[in-house]
């Protein structure tokens, strides 16, 4: 049992570190983990789940706004991008946030192609993050089921 736990813990550690190194997560994700404890063991997962729901909603808004060919309201697109930028920043979704920065610039420049490209990228990016985090949460679950504790991962 201990060997299994140790192995899972190592996998978890390596995986988590890779997510930071590849730029999927930043510092703010670490901050969220600080808010999780035995009393609220699923806090991070819950917040991220809300974030992903937000992504679906906001990306939907952006897509609809961009769909008005010829009469695209870039302010409207920009407003949703701004919101997504905010929430991605709050959860440490680094790549999503980075894309929102570029996206916002395209909105301000009223660059239709740029916006459409960003929309596609942001859609891919949040889904990728969602999958990666799911894998990470699954590892956590396996560790606990094997009787171990999820280790604190020191990113630095």
């Amino acid at each position, binding site marked *: 049992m201990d060997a299994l736990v140790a192995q899972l813990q190592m996998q978890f550690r390596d995986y988590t570190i890779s997510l930071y190194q590849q730029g999927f997560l930043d510092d703010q994700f670490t*901050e969220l983990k600080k*808010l999780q404890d035995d009393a609220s063991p699923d*806090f991070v997962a819950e*917040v991220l789940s809300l974030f992903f729901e937000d992504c679906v909603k906001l990306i939907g808004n952006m897509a609809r706004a961009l769909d008005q060919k010829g009469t695209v309201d870039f302010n409207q697109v920009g407003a949703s991008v*701004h919101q997504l930028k*905010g*929430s991605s920043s709050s959860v440490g979704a680094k790549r999503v946030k980075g894309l929102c920065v570029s996206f916002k610039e395209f909105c301000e420049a009223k660059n239709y192609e740029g916006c459409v490209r960003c929309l596609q990228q942001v859609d891919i990016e949040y889904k990728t993050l969602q999958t990666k985090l799911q894998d990470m949460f699954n590892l956590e679950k396996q560790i606990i089921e094997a009787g171990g504790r999820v280790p604190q991962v020191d990113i630095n």
Partner: protein
Amino acid sequence: MARDGGVSCLRRSEIMSVGMESAPLDLDEVHVLAVDDSLVDRIVIERLLRITSCKVTAVDSGWRALEFLGLDNEKASAKFDESSNFREVPVVIMSSENVLTRIDRCLEEGAEDFLLKPVKLADVKRLRNYLTRDVKLSNGNKRKLPEVSDSVHASLPPPSPPLTLSPDSSDSSPPLSPVEIFSSPLSSPIDDEDDDVLTSSSPESLTTPEESPIRRQKMRSPGLD
């Protein structure tokens, strides 16, 4: 138009005076009204505050904040300036916009502090620390709290009745010019991006909360728990 989330701290007596039901609170408990239109941010700030032992009410707009405080009707607005209940309640602005002139403006208009998003645990702890310290200073019956300097003691005037609130509106759209955010009075409740009338304060910029003369002036409410 950019709208910022805001955090207002209510002391128990202020809440009671508005006629709201409240379960018996620990005397030292701070009640924070957090305003942010982003659900994700609301959840995060709520958790941050709870972890630092604050009671939290999170609402999604400035309008709801007024509703919560019972300041959303004609009658309340009319009494707003006379009522001293909320005037001393500290208002903290949260925003992702790191524009110094805007931050300064927030502080000049009476905000207690400015938290740059994304908000971290250390930010909220810092907030909590100086709020608690002021609580102790305003009412000698409270439990002893750490890190109260004598100079701060000496500079405080005697406690006065709790005064009016200045909640901040929450927002998510592209940036407003500072004038639009801060110049509108509470008397136009239709536009919930308006800030309430903020008490005037010295135009000094805030360096750190611990050193702010603005903050020391404002933290006078005796009802602070």
